[in-house]
């Protein structure tokens, strides 16, 4: 197994870090979405890393994408903005690219890769969270297409998105059948609810999205009719990988901040890093980063081989999120009262991190999945 990065990958990584540091770390946008930053990211070419060149993408491997997005998390202090980009790329644009019919690809991909259209995914409902398949949203078929009714909750990018991948019940049999649709914001009957205030990730706006007799042309079925459940598992696989890859980079950034702090802050006449209780916390951060990276390489390899990584991405999501939160929590302790203030960024990092044990399927649900999948191994 070769763990060395190619010169190309190294250059992509470095250029990404330099680009982000020069353009994306504007404090005024830590808590609100910036269309200008979005535009810059699109021009830089980050949106289409794995998308084919015919749609304006770079056609790079999943490993290269992982390396770039780890670097993204490392350099970009605006975790909410990172979330905007990942929602757009991996659970919207990417699904159209991999599972969409030619018509959908031709219609949407160029516009999404160039950043002219922003994507989002809509699965969750008020009464269907972890139990996503109990969803109520339904799409009734007629000659020309489908009539969609229902409310989707906690939709990241909701207030700014132009294109939604929406999952809805299309057959009420037992078990019921689900279909995925590509729905434009401009379609009649789409209403965006007001922005939902959150604890963190505030540069990524969230809202409810309401579909009231929304008419969807039949060409806008994503994947196969009644095969939405399968597509949902694919979508979550991508989400559990690429939305958590940047968190490894964030952990690295926080670890570096902590190392610097414990080497300079003195109490009782010694640097606080000389206390094992603190140095061990940093050692644990390093272990978590390394272990997460190993798993990242494995999943990227599986994906580049065209294989599924259902259990692996569940393990990855669980491991990275628990350690990401722990890293932020420990950083707060290491920084003491300074970490608790608004001036040091640590409190924001922790607020941003906490959501990751919930989105993409809660960590409890990941354990259920991992345990269930044991019987398949």
């Amino acid at each position: 197994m070769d763990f060395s990065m190619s010169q190309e990958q190294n250059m992509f990584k470095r250029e990404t870090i330099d680009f982000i540091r020069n353009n994306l770390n504007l404090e005024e946008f830590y808590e609100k979405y910036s269309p200008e930053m979005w535009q810059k990211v699109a021009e830089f070419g980050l949106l289409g890393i794995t998308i084919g060149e015919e749609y304006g993408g770079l056609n790079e491997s999943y490993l290269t994408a992982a390396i770039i997005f780890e670097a993204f998390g490392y350099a970009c202090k605006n975790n909410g903005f990172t979330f905007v980009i990942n929602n757009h790329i991996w659970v919207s644009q990417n699904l159209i690219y991999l599972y969409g019919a030619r018509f959908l690809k031709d219609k949407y991909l160029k516009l999404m890769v160039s950043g002219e259209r922003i994507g989002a995914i809509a699965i969750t409902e008020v009464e269907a969270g972890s139990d996503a398949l109990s969803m109520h949203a339904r799409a009734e078929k007629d000659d020309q297409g489908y009539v969609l009714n229902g409310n989707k909750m906690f939709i990241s990018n909701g207030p700014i998105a132009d294109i939604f991948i929406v999952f809805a019940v299309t057959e009420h049999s037992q078990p019921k059948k689900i279909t995925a649709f590509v729905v434009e914001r401009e379609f009649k009957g789409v209403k965006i609810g007001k922005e939902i205030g959150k604890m963190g990730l505030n540069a990524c706006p969230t809202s409810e999205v309401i579909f009231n007799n929304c008419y969807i042309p039949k060409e806008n079925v994503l994947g196969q009719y009644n095969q939405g459940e399968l597509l949902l598992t694919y979508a979550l696989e991508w989400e559990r990988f690429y939305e958590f890859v940047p968190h490894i980079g964030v952990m690295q950034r926080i670890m570096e901040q902590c190392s610097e702090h414990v080497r300079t802050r003195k109490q009782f006449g010694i640097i606080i890093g000389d206390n094992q209780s603190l140095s061990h916390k940093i050692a644990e951060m390093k272990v978590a980063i390394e272990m997460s990276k190993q798993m990242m390489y494995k999943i990227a390899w599986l994906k580049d081989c065209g294989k599924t990584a259902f259990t692996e991405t569940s393990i990855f999501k669980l491991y990275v999120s628990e350690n990401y939160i722990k890293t932020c929590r420990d950083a707060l302790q290491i920084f003491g009262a300074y970490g608790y203030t608004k001036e040091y960024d640590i409190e924001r990092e922790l607020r941003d991190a906490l959501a990751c044990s919930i989105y993409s399927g809660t960590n409890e649900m990941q354990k259920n999945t991992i345990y269930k999948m044991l019987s398949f191994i």
Partner: protein
Amino acid sequence: MKIIVCVKAVRQELVFINKVQQSTYVINPYDLLALQNAINIKNTEACTIDCISMGPDSIREVLVKCLALGSDNAYWLNDKAFAGADTIVTTYVLSKGISKIGEYDLIICGEQTVDGETGQVGIGLAERLNIPCITNVEEIIDFTDKYIIVCVKYEDHEEVLKIQLPALVVFKNFKLISNTVSLLHLKKAQRKEIVRWSSNDLCFEKNWCGLAQAKTRVVNVTPELIVKEGRLISGNAKKKAVVISQLIQGRFDADNYG
């Protein structure tokens, strides 16, 4: 029309003291400005830009970056025998490389490098190529296929000069921040071939270059740390204003301050 830009790769810590930049080697900031000027010309005139650099194996990325920034071709003079070259040898190797490239209209150099600080390569190269050279160039004002008009700045005056082509101009300033290039440009640049020439390709004896022929050696380059004397002005705003006004008027009495 063809512009050749001479570029040197220098270690990044000589340019970015706080190591914010990610690469081991970066484009010498003086040459980056030279390249930027060539790109500015290309934005308005039909021309091609060739970058040429003499350097070891590890500088390939710098040439890729030149291509990504807008250079059309990159030539890499790379041979162990070139190691330790001083300005005399560097100008010799570069002149051989440039002659092998063929016809050109303008050569652009930066004034100096941050690792050598000698500032001799531009003029030396012009001498070897037997073309006119203008140093201290601030700006290229006009560019035609017969001549260019440049603005040259000195401490107390500036000159506007017209010079017949082919010629060599040396830019006096430097540019620290390299524009980040898009990933697409970077990918295209990575796919382009970088022409690599050794001493054999340039048809000269190995013992004619490198340390063996160098007449000078830069033993060390250390940045000079200029620490300016500062004074902390304390007190309320009114008191501070009084002190500042005294300082400006040269009436400040340090002994009685406080």
